[in-house]
Structures are given as C-alpha cells and as structure tokens.
C-alpha cells in the first residue's frame, strides 16, 4: 500500500503555522543542564529514570534473596521486606516505566517523528523534568528518614498505610505521598506538551493516520495519564490529610494497639476506587507506548509494512478508552458490591479483543517478512511472547470466580510481572537498542546486546514461569517468610531458591547493558544517519544526532505513511516518509 492520494490530487497543503523561534542556549548550563531542547530533556528523563530503576532492581534482589533463602539473611527483617516491596513496585511502575516511556521516549521521539522542531512549550517541558527530578529525590529521601520508607505495599491501601503497625508510618508515607503529588504536577506539564505537539504541531503532510504507531501509543497513553493521574492526585491529597491532619476520608473506626483510634467514619473502599481508577489506566499507560514501539520495531526489522495499520490505531484508542471502565477488577475481594464484579469482569474481557487484534497484527506483520534478528527485533519478539503469556493469565484473573481463590497469591505477582513488568521493559530495551544510534550517533555493541537479550529473556521466564505454579499451590504474596505450611510442599522452597538465583543472574545481565550503554558511547561503531534503513522521519534528519531544531532550514514534508518497506519496484527496500512520490515507480512496472 503506497499512501499518496492526498498529495497527488491536491498537492501538499501550504504551511498553516509560521516558523516559531526556538530558544537558543547561550551557555553550557542552558545547553546541557537547564536545557529547553526536548532531546536533552529526554536524555535527562531517561538517565534519572534508569538510575532510580537500578535502586528498584537492587530491592528486588534483596526480596528474592529473602524468599529463596529465608532465615539466611539476618539483615532483612519482615518490616524491611515490606518496605522493599513497596518501593520496588512504586519505583518500577511510576518513576521508571511511566517516566521513561513518556518523558524519555516521548520527549525524544514525538517532535522528531511528527516533524516538529521541538515541543510546543520548551520552557514548561524543562520545568516538567525538574519537578520530576524533585519527586524522585523526595522518594529517594524516604530511605534516609527515621523509620525508613513506607511498607504499605505499592497500592498504599488505607487504613494500614497510615496506622502505627506499618513500617514508615512516621515519615515514609508522608514523603511517598508528597513525591507522588510532585510527580503528577511534573507529569502534567510534560503531558500537555506531548498532546499539543501531536495535535497541533505536525509538519506538512503528516496526518494523524500517517504517524508512526510509536507516536500513537505515546500520545494515547499521555491523554490517558492526564485523565487518570487526577484520581491518584486526589487520593494522595486525601490520604495525606488523613495522616497529617487527622481527617477520616479513608479511615473507618478501628482499634489500634488496643486503643480506639482517633479516626472514624471513612471509607477504605473509596481509596481503592480512586487508586484503581488511576491504577488500571496506568497499566495501559506503560503498555500502549510499548505497543507502539514494538509495532515500529517489528515492521522495520522484518522489512515489511505493519499489518492492518488502521486497526492498530483504533485498537490503541479502544484500549485507551476501555481501560477507564475496568478498574474494579482489582477489587473483587475488597468487599464492594458483587454485581460490580459482574460488570467489571465483562468489560475486562472485552478489552481482550482489541489487544488480541494487536497481537495478531504483529504476528501477521512477521508472517513471510524478511526478518532480521537484530537485537531490537529479538526484544520485540520477546515482548510478544511475554505479553501474550501475561495477557492469558489476565483472562484467568479477570473472571471473578477464578480470581477469588487466586487473589493475593504468587499467581497475581507472576501475571503482572509478565504483562506489565517484563513485557514493557522488553519494549524499553528494544527501543533503546533501536534508537541509541540516533541519540548518540553510535551503535550499541551487538554481541553484548544479544547476550543481554538471551539472559534477560530466559532468566525472566526462569523467575516468573514457576511463580504461576507457586501461586496455584496457594503461596501468598507479600509474605516475608512462608514458614512450614501443609499445602506448600518442600519442593516449592527449592523452586523459590532456583528463582532467586535466576533473578540475580538477570539482574547482573542488566549491568552488562549499562556497561554497553557507556562503552558504546565512546567505542561503538559509527552509525550513520539511518543504520536500520527505517522510513520514519527521525531517521531522515540532516544531522545525527539531530541538532538543535531537529531539521536544517526547512521542515520535512511528508508524502506517505511510515511503513513503506519492500515496496515492489522501489529503488530501495524502504521509502522514507519524506521522499516525494516520483521516487516510486508505479506498481507493476517491474514484474
């Protein structure tokens, strides 16, 4: 499919928006530190997110050590274990994945892919990063306050989140909530930029239906985040008031340490509704950018146009919309009205349809493609496998009757790690291997990359596949030490030890990746402008890495969609989006 009718009939429409003058940095500080260039901000976001992500990775090692070899490590007590769980979850979901996909990939790719010079409000964009950094610092500070970070679990459910039995009740929970509020403020500033840039600042010829799916994924995820984060904002404010002022929004009348607490009349379920009204869209906020990135990686590295582009776009939009009406499937055992469960199970299963469309389309894109098993492609394939795996267990957990016995077991842990832990991180890695040459001008080392992929992929399965079995046995999650129980056989403990060793190996493979990032920056192979032979605009910049303002004097003009790979009769096996139609010989000219 060569998509050129608009231009051939009417010609490319004239520019509707005049050139906007960019802020030009005058010193080292404004060029690299307080920079208003989206590309620099993207790198800042990425480095900050990956740094705090390393903390969460180390926390997961500590948890696995405790689970695999209970009683061996005396420095991990039950309170610390809960704190590790909480911080690991919160950091990974919000401060790593959300920030990396939207702040990192979004900032770098949106202006380049839609043919803009920068985000529409560079100054607000810069503020967004610095508020995010502040949020990360406040979060990291909880490790050093008296009492340590909160151990309430990443969902921060009241009443236990602010009662005195929970670790981090003094300062940890306060800092955590303050950090979340800051994160949301910072994200809103960035998110408005991403949305307006996509809607209002595309280059000539770039219609919405010609955008690469990466932009569609990030755009839809950002819209969702702008509508879902308010619920978390409100929940955080109210929980903070409960903790600091003694209000009772979420706190029922209860006995604490043998004494009637000062609280009374609040609704813990209300917090769960607010939290999951944010929490479920959040799953798709990290999944949709991954969907988009994977679509582009597969198409580029299989040298084949994406199968069913329009369906892919509408599936992204449909998933985004549906994800706002499924939140209470996290709450089947919360004590809410059982009829709600019926409704939410139905909507949850409906969301499987657009998701399945996407998976089929990825597979059909691969079908008879010219598959290059490059490192980004390997990660893309790994994403599809892990995502399908996690999605299928999601069908189990989406049904009330199956969910009730599986609730709060290791099965749930295995499910969400597969579907929104491993799968999105595969997309992150694939994306980094794919776009690193554009960001730095050098290729990442291929051998180290393949090592990284295989250890991560096989290792992730070694960790999380047996975990499903443990969950089916009934092993509960969030337990510091399972102890001797009749329903958990001794072999399960051996399995736990095996998983812990695998987790450590996977963790150390990430150090290889970090080494690769730094080493290739100096010693990597020169990449050139378009090492993968890709069609989308970011690979057509006059300079690599792209200079300030992205495009030389003239903005690019777009003539086609982003997936013209292996077009019959074309001179090369890809046709860049900004190549005029005359470059394509009419179909059928060569047999």
């Amino acid at each position: 499919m060569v998509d050129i009718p608009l231009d051939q009939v009417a010609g490319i429409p004239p520019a509707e928006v005049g050139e906007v003058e960019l802020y030009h940095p005058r010193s080292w500080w404004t060029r690299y530190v307080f920079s208003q260039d989206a590309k620099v901000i993207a790198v800042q976001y990425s480095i900050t997110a990956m740094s705090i992500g390393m903390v969460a990775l180390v926390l997961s090692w500590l948890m696995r050590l405790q689970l695999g070899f209970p009683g061996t490590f005396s420095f991990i007590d039950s309170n610390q274990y809960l704190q590790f769980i909480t911080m690991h979850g919160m950091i990974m979901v919000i401060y790593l994945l959300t920030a990396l996909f939207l702040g990192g990939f979004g900032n770098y790719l949106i202006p380049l892919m839609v043919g803009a010079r920068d985000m529409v409000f560079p100054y607000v964009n810069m503020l967004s990063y610095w508020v995010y950094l502040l949020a990360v610092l406040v979060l990291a500070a909880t490790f050093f306050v008296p009492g340590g970070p909160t151990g309430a679990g990443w969902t921060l459910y009241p009443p236990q989140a602010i009662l005195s039995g929970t670790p981090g009740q003094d300062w940890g929970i306060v800092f955590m909530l303050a950090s979340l509020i800051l994160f949301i403020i910072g994200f809103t500033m960035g998110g408005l930029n991403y949305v307006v840039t996509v809607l209002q600042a595309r280059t000539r010829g770039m219609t919405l239906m010609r955008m690469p799916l990466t932009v569609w994924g990030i755009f839809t995820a950002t819209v969702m985040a702008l509508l879902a984060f308010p619920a978390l904002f409100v929940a955080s404010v109210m929980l903070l008031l409960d903790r600091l002022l003694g209000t009772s929004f979420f706190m029922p009348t209860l006995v604490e340490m043998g004494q009637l607490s000062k609280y009374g009349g609040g609704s813990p379920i209300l917090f769960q509704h607010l939290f999951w009204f944010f929490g479920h869209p959040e799953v798709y906020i990290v999944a949709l950018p991954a969907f988009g990135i994977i679509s582009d990686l597969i198409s580029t590295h299989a040298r084949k146009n994406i199968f069913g582009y329009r369906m892919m776009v509408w599936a992204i939009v449909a998933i985004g919309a549906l994800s706002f009406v499924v939140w209470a499937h996290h709450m089947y055992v919360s004590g809410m009205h059982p009829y709600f469960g019926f409704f939410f199970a139905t909507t949850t299963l409906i969301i499987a349809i657009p998701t399945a469309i996407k998976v089929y389309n990825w597979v059909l894109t691969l079908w008879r493609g010219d598959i290059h098993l490059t490192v980004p492609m390997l990660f893309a394939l790994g994403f599809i496998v892990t995502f399908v795996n996690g999605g299928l267990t999601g069908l189990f957990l989406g049904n009330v009757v199956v969910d009730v016995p599986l609730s709060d077991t290791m099965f749930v842990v295995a499910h969400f790690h597969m579907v929104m832990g491993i799968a999105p991180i595969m997309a992150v890695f694939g994306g980094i291997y794919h776009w690193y040459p554009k960001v730095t001008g050098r290729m990442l080392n291929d051998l180290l990359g393949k090592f990284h992929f295989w250890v991560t992929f096989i290792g992730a399965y070694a960790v999380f596949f047996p975990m499903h079995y443990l969950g089916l046995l009934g092993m509960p999650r969030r337990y510091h030490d399972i102890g001797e129980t009749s329903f958990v056989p001794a072999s399960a403990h051996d399995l736990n030890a095996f998983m812990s060793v695998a987790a450590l190996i996977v963790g150390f493979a990430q150090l290889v990746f970090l080494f690769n990032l730094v080493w290739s920056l100096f010693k990597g192979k020169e990449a050139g402008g378009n090492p993968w032979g890709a069609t989308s605009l970011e690979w057509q910049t006059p300079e690599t890495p792209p200079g300030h303002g992205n495009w030389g004097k003239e903005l690019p003009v777009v003539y086609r969609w982003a997936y013209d790979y292996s077009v019959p009769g074309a001179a090369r096996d890809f046709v860049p989006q900004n190549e005029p139609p005359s470059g394509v010989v009419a179909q059928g000219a060569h047999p």
Partner: protein
Amino acid sequence: MAETTLMQPKAAPGTIPGLRGIAADWASDQRAFKNVSWGKAMMWIFLLSDTFIFSCFLLSYMTARMSTTVPWPNPSEVFALNIGSKHIPLILIAIMTFVLISSSGTMAMAVNFGYRHDRVRTAALMLATAAFGATFVGMQAFEWTKLIMEGVRPWGNPWGAPQFGACFFMITGFHGTHVTIGVIFLIAIARKVLRGDFDRERRGFFTSRKGYYEIVEITGLYWHFVDLVWVFIFAFFYLW
C-alpha cells in the same frame, strides 16, 4: 518570522461546516484544531485534566456524605449569618457566588477589549476581575474563620459527621487556591498589557517567547473554569 499566523489564526481555506468538517480537520495534516493556537489548546486540555481532579474531589465528598452513619450538619444553618438581628441562611455564599460570577463578566469584557488592543481598558477590567477574585478569597477566609471559631475542624465539628469539616476545608481550600493562582496570573498579565508588551512583542522573562493579546483570552478560559467549578461546589456542598 511569520509568527502572527500562529497566534491569530485565519480560517483555513475551504473549511467544511458541521461534522464532516470536524472529520476533515482531524484527517488533515499539521493541526487537528484548525483555528486554535498552541497556548489555547494547552489550556483546554489542562482544564479537562483539572475537571477530573475536581470531579474526584466532589465524588469523594458525595461518597463520604452518603455513606456516613452520623447526621450531616445542615448547610442552611451552618452557613447562615446574623445580620442586624436577622438570621439569613446562606447569605455569605450568595454574595460570594454573585461576586465570582460578576468577575466572569468583567473577564469576558477584558477579552473583548484585548482583541481591540485597548491596553488601558483591558488592563483595568483584568484588575477589576482580580479584585473580585481577591474579594471572593477574602470572604472565604472570613467564612473559614467563622467556622473555625464555632469549632469546626478537619477532624470533627459540633454538629455531626466529622467528614463535613474535612470535605469543606479540602474542597473550598483547593478551589480557593485555584482562585488565588488566577488572581496572581490576572495581575501579572494586566501588568504586561498595560506596559504594552503585546504591542511591542516583548519577550517573556522565563520563556523568552513573544506575547500576544490572546493570552488575555487564555487567562480568561482558566478564570471561567474556576467560576464554573464554583457553581458545582455551591450546588453540591451548600444547596444539597
């Protein structure tokens, strides 16, 4: 360069009316909202996001009020004032609402004069709007003081459900913060208007971008939104 096209957009040639026009705009290149500048689009999307914040606050309040087992204090009594030996329910809120709605009127006039590049009148009307807003916040402070003197606290009150004080201080406080931020912005923009920044295309201190009279309208969007939110708070908190 041709920046005026950005800020004062002309209708794109061949604009199609109705739903087909919307579809055509969204199917086109460059911009989905054809005659909307970046700043205005951003404000609209921000307000959409802010709507969700206020909706969550109000829904939480309604949940608390409907699920409490203790009687909810009667708002007509709680928010009544004794003026000259007369007991008038909701009188202060009525005045506050009137003041805020009036400020929307002066704001709309300011936008009108802004587009006529009438510096003095625009600035005067914006300052009048800011004064109305400040009056509103002042009366809110009075109301808070009165309730606090009567013993209302975030964790309890003499008349019933403790969530009454919690919801009241949280929601009106969050709205009052919005009004205060609006007042600050109004004064800052009015100063720029009066100084002629938008006639001389003087660059902003932080953003180093040129300003345009459209910023008056964008500030107005925010202001009208804050007013609209008050109408809902008024209805759900005071009239229920």
